[in-house]
């Protein structure tokens, strides 16, 4: 067994202080990445600084937008009804991340700091405009999540810096988001491809988008979208993020521009998918070949956009089991 000293600070300040004085130290939260790397002998730290007992790192606050601590577990996020309803892309990711045993200890901070190109929460955080609050020996700062990821395993964190928490703005009722994790198995698998989208509709023309009649609640979403064409629903803001298509999780900004200010239609979503595919730089890997990933981006971007729309139109359905999109 690799020998290391295990430290359990009770406060953020103590943790940052320990990091400054200890030789060859690493933070550990849920340990589902760190412990695996240690057991694989790919990581041989002399000191581990545990974040598990720092109360200020574990909270979920939905008073104004969404704020949560870095050491919040995927399970805690997954079980939160307000997050499921208003920030659905995030719970789409946490509900299919690893197994329940993993989700019960693994943290969202650990997921982004580990910065795997396949990290499941990365794309949802990108489309939800998350801001990462960090603190280090030189003080505190905020980093937009888009600037946080820099490459495989690389983040904007300077040595000794610790992620305190994340915050996401409030988008209002006219917003829907989704994350689709494309895998070979339904559980315990890393994505071949991950796609997240968010749509915020402009409410200026006062169109009624909520499902009113029973017909609407059972109709297929593509039929509903076709009918809604007359309502001229305009997209105020659109976000598309893709994982496992580049060295870091990335936004498809050209495809976002295709959507912004336009009237919702299935054709528009298709075009956005095609543009997003042209922005990606996928590689061949054991999980999938580059050409396949490119083809699937087109499909999944469209599907995620439709799913986001569905969540605006039928928000109450979002908390019920998956329908087929």
């Amino acid at each position, binding site marked *: 067994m690799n020998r290391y000293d295990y430290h359990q600070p009770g406060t953020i300040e103590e943790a940052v202080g320990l990091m400054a004085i200890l030789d060859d130290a690493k933070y550990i939260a849920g340990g589902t990445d760190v412990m*695996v790397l240690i057991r694989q002998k790919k990581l041989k730290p002399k000191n*581990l600084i545990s974040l598990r007992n720092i109360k200020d790192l574990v909270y979920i606050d939905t008073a104004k937008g969404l704020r949560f601590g870095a050491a919040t577990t995927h399970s805690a996020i997954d079980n939160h009804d307000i997050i499921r309803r208003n920030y659905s892309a995030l719970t789409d990711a946490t509900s299919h991340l690893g197994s329940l*045993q993993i989700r019960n200890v693994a943290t969202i901070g650990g997921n982004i700091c580990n910065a795997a190109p396949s990290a499941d929460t990365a794309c949802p955080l990108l489309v939800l405009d998350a801001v990462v609050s960090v603190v280090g020996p030189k003080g505190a700062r905020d980093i937009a999540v888009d600037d946080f990821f820099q490459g495989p395993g690389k983040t904007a964190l300077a040595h000794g810096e610790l992620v305190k928490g994340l915050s996401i703005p409030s988008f209002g009722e006219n917003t829907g988001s989704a994350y689709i994790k494309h895998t070979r198995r339904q559980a315990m698998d890393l994505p071949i491809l991950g796609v997240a989208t968010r749509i915020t509709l402009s409410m200026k023309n006062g169109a009624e988008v909520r499902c009113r009649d029973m017909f609407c609640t059972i109709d297929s979403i593509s039929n509903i979208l076709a009918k809604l064409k007359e309502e001229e629903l305009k997209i105020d803001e659109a976000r598309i993020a893709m994982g496992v298509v580049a060295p870091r999780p990335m936004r498809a900004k050209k495809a976002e521009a295709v959507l912004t200010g336009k009237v919702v239609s299935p054709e528009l979503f298709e075009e956005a998918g095609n543009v997003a595919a042209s922005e990606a730089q996928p590689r061949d890997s054991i999980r999938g070949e580059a050409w396949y990933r490119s083809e699937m981006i087109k499909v999944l971007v469209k599907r995620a956009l439709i799913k986001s729309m569905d969540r605006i139109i039928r928000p109450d359905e979002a908390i019920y089991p998956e329908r087929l999109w």
Partner: protein
Amino acid sequence: MKREIGFTLNGEAVRLEVEDQWTLLYLLREVLEMTGTKEGCGYGECGACTVIIDGKAINSCLYPAMEAEGRAITTIEGLVSKDGELHPLQTAFINEGAVQCGFCTPGMIMSAKALLDANDKPTEEEIKDAVAGNLCRCTGYVKIIDAIKSAAGGR
């Protein structure tokens, strides 16, 4: 470095010296010689090492032993009642034929117990989700799910 920690194990208070780099699985199997909890992959993939901490199923192979401090841990050894009667889940696994080689069984039962303790009428989907992190290489999943259902119904 060794440090003394205290926690509750299967309802009893325990105090003992733990080394920094021990995992909870190592502590259970090699130090306390409670070998009901199995080591399969050692990387959190197979669920054979599943135990319950503060009501939640976790992989003990990735859990630093030091973090047990102050927590309540239940292992498969804690399921039998004081007078030797099997837990309803154990009986259900036997009655439904949900045990083949038996290696995954302790982990399966611990995942199922965590589920039923929190939700006594789970749907089939919820059962599948709860044991998705427990691999059975004899592939007896149907009977395992049946057993969990019958334990839930028989409560």
